């Protein structure tokens, strides 16, 4: 059940070697403002492949904690008595729950991974994400107020970082994108700050 992060973790149909130049789907992207020079930078990119391993690990941990809580809590059912198969049914239930949780923790991150793309171009940063509810979000460079890059302990193990972009907006006052390679997150931050005009936006 355990993936080592050194080996290729993306067994569930994730094309890990196509990080750059992904075009996720259909029609016009309003990318016509791009310079010829930064063509590749303008293309959509995926998160770091480590994102999947990271999410899986956190998923496993959450699932284990849940099981540790649920199994003792429901263990009195074992002594419910009645028929001989009742304890076996309970154990089967536990196994099913464990299987569902662990499978979910294993499969879901890959699905999420395939549904997040981002790009940083001359127009600003654009993020497409969401599995069921799909969002496309555009933040022009001139609207970026400030940028944070954070890295948690488990993220550090996988060399991942979370970038948080703050705007003066209301609903999108802060936009988070986690699962980027830490160095890349830092790079994006530098670029956003360098390109941003240090001017009032209100």
């Amino acid at each position, binding site marked *: 059940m355990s993936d080592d992060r050194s080996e290729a973790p993306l067994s569930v149909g994730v094309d890990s070697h196509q990080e750059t130049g992904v075009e996720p789907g259909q029609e016009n992207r309003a990318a*016509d403002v791009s310079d010829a020079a930064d063509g590749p930078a303008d293309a959509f990119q995926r998160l770091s492949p480590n994102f999947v391993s990271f999410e899986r690990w956190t998923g496993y941990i959450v699932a284990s904690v849940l099981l540790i809580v649920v199994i003792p809590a429901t263990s009195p059912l074992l002594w419910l008595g009645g028929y001989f198969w009742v304890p076996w049914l309970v154990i089967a239930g536990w196994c099913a729950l464990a299987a569902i949780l662990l499978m979910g923790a294993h499969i879901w991150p890959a699905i999420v991974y395939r549904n997040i793309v981002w790009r940083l171009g001359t127009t600003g940063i654009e993020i497409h994400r969401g599995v069921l509810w799909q969002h496309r979000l555009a*933040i022009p460079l001139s609207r970026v107020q400030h940028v944070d890059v954070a890295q948690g302990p488990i993220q550090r193990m996988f060399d991942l970082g979370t970038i948080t972009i703050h705007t003066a907006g209301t609903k999108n006052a802060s936009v988070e994108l986690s699962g980027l390679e830490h160095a890349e997150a830092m790079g994006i931050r530098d670029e956003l700050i360098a390109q941003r005009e240090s001017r009032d936006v209100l």
Partner: protein
Amino acid sequence: MSSESDNNQGQQSSPRIPDGSQVRLPPDAGLAIDEPHYLHPSSLFFEVFSQIRQYIWPALFGAFGLASGNPFGMGVAGVVLGLSFLVSTIRYFTLRYRIKGDDFIVTEGLLFRRVRSVPVRRIQNVDLIQNVLHRLCSVAVVNIETASGTKPEATLRVLTLAQIEELRESIFGSQRESEVVSARHSIKPPPLVDGVATGTGDESAGQHTQIAKSSVANRNLLLEIPTKYLVLAGLASNRGLVILGVIAGFIFQGENFQFQSWRTFSQQFAKYIPNQLRGDSDFSLVVGVLLLFVLLKIVSAVWYVLRFHGYQLTRLNNDLRVTCGLFTKVSATIPRGRIQFISVHRPILLRPFGLASIRIETAGGSGKEGEDAAATVSRRWFVPVLPDSEVVRLLAELRPGLDWQQDEVHWFGVSKNTGKRLLRLVLLISAAISAFGLLYSLAWGWVFGVAAFVFLFAVAKKKAKSRRYARLPWGVAYQSGLLTRRMSFSFYDRMQTVDCQQSPFDRRWKMASLRIDTAAAGPADHLMQIDYLDEAFAHEQFGQLQTELVAHRPDWN
């Protein structure tokens, strides 16, 4: 300073000085409030008063305790009162404000000294609140707001009107009379009155009237609202609901009026109805509800008149100023360039009278918590009511270049499939209602479902049809709503992010919704979220808006 003031006629052409190379003012550049200023002496009284208002409940509790022979509560109340006296005395003697260079600085505190420095250019609005007591002393409370947070950046309680005028002039740098209209700039011309220091109310009263006169003469009166319109708007609104709710809360807390059930409520209520009318309690309940409704409307109308009496909207160069209020007078100054969003509301009850209202959003003091009178006036009801024929003229005043010609606008509607999609939804709801109906009566229960279907489908269809979206050279217009028809304007250089969403249902129907986020969105009560658009159209607009946002940089200052 005329060298600064003559450089430009229009906003957009003003030279853009990047932050780093900001032209710093020499120390003697003529800013009025260079040396520290104190609050007005009457602040002591008003500060204590406002503190007491915060502690009114503990104080009452103490008094109650004393009445029932327990001096402990009164002791607590006394300590609280004493402390608040102490706090306000310290505050009065230590608080001073000044404008130094580009910063507005407030210093405060004895043990813990707090220095708050706000760049003048970041100040979004300066509001002034004057209740009856303030007016007797010709002083007012000043709130200074920036785009951050939910509370005003600084509250100065209280200043004389002359001080306030001086402060406003230095902050917004309005021009003297007879000077050419010029762009607002980070460098301020000298204020109207030099050397008006911290005089007492009596001394500065004469000067104050002078100032008031000269600035009113200089100001461009945009709109006045006759009381008749205010009453109409009040009757059409349900503002009284909030007030009645508060009153009802007080009543039900009383010992002899406990709410047990509607029946007992109406029986108790019946006591207040004259004998001839009092039949059974059901009848009195109906009468009660009717009376309550009438009361609600009257309270709403009274509230509108109290708050907006003598409404005046004036403009001096780029600063809009709203002054209104019967007892508590509010005067809010809003720089035109700080308007983020404009919304025109046309409630169904006001449409026959040809009336509308305008709401704006500014980034200052955006939070919902502790909304005071100034916030209500300047953000929620910027123009509480006005004739529909004046709307276009005012829109152009609020935002130069907003030349709104309703007939020439090319509107985009919702997707063609919206009807079908809503039909499914309505069918589902009606089926559920029919099922419930059948539980009551097997023979006739389905009637409910059919009635619900007819009604809901008509409403849904009309509602979908009322949604319209238009692209204009300066921004986007969006209209929606059946009962209250809302039409809002968002500007490319004021939009922060653009966002396109698809729920699983949206994807099934090949639809998407487009959302435009602006700073401090919400008070205008009309979110720029345009649902049920065709997927292809929404995605196309998403891309185009992105390009427009890049092309229109938000630099007005």
